[in-house]
């Protein structure tokens, strides 16, 4: 039986089809990557809660971006270039011991302290089982205790150390983002140092959607906490 020759398929228009698709994708797409600075807003609080206890002045770094796009730290004007050093100092000046009494102090966290705090909080919980914040507090100390198992005794910035960021209605978003960027930069750099010190994976490769990375992220959040308080906007 004679073999019938199958003729070659004409592929000449293949390029045209591919071109058409290519042009479609060229037109419908944008090359930009979506990037940004992630932040968590504070939970809406119950109005009826008792006011928080007064906080020592030295534990608060007051940053104000005013409506003329000027930057004030602790009520005096500063340049944007100097903000990095100011925030860095706030975080680190007392880390190795008490050097500046006007900045937040550090406190060594030991196993004994964790145990004592947990026992005390559990006793409180027995007395007032309705208190919703106590279980969270206990969990926090348990996490700290677990952290000591990994990194050993460490020192922690004062628990009420906070950066207060105030804006006015006329403050430009650009200035606000410059400040946010510097706050992020300081925390990132300090966390990178902690990562290197304790042989953690590279900080910038850690991702929140991977549970194995979250272990490290949670530890870093205790070692270098990022507490930003955004006050209500002023006119």
């Amino acid at each position, binding site marked *: 039986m004679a073999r019938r020759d199958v003729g070659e398929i004409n*592929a000449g228009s*293949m*390029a045209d089809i*591919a*071109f058409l*698709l*290519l042009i479609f*994708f*060229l037109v*419908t*797409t*944008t*090359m*930009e*990557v*979506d*990037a*940004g*600075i*992630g*932040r*968590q*807003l*504070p*939970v*809406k609080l119950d109005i009826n809660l008792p006011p928080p206890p007064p906080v020592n002045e030295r534990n608060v770094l007051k940053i104000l*971006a005013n409506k003329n796009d000027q930057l004030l730290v602790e009520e005096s004007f500063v340049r944007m270039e100097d903000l990095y050093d100011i925030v860095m100092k706030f975080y680190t000046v007392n880390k190795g011991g008490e050097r500046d009494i006007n900045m937040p102090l550090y406190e060594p966290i030991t196993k004994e302290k964790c145990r004592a705090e947990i026992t005390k909080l559990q006793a409180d919980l027995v007395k007032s089982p309705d208190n919703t914040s106590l279980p969270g507090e206990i969990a926090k100390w348990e996490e700290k205790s677990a952290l000591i198992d990994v990194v050993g005794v460490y020192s922690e910035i004062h628990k009420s150390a906070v950066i207060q960021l105030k*804006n*006015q*209605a*006329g*403050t*430009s*978003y*650009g200035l*606000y*983002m*410059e400040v*946010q*960027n510097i706050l*992020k*930069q300081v925390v*990132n750099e300090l966390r990178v140092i902690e990562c290197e010190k304790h042989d953690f994976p590279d900080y*910038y490769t850690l*991702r929140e*959607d991977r549970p194995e990375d979250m272990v490290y992220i949670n530890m870093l959040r205790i070692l270098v906490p990022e507490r930003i308080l955004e006050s*209500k*906007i002023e006119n």
Partner: protein
Amino acid sequence: MSKFKKGGKRGIPAVNTSALPDIIFMLLFFFMVATTMKEVEMKVEIEKPIANQATPIEDKDNVDFIYIGYPIDAAEGTEPRIQLDDRLAPDVTSVGDWKKSKVRAGKRVLDIVTSLKVDKSVGMRIVSDVKEELRDVDALKINYSADISK
């Protein structure tokens, strides 16, 4: 008479174009992989701020975008406006309901990040109001959109 000289027409042989589809396909695949679809048609003009600490958004499916900028259409005025999906919001109070309506099946409002794409010259008043609205509906994870470099 040269022995190489032949009679008849001498033309330049046609360039072999059989590899052309492959090259085009390669380009096509590059663009298909490297690009993302435009999310919405922009109704406001936004020049994003620069922030070298910005990190790329990984999980784009679980992000909602709020755009705040100056309206492109002059009939909408010159004040900064909020764009939700592809229309301008009448005022800030519609942000909360919009955010709740965008919840994906099996997720809480809390799980979905809200990315704020804001023009850098917009005042903080409108940004602050949007954040308050988001807090009211428990959409606490936000992301300030910025370009990593110029």
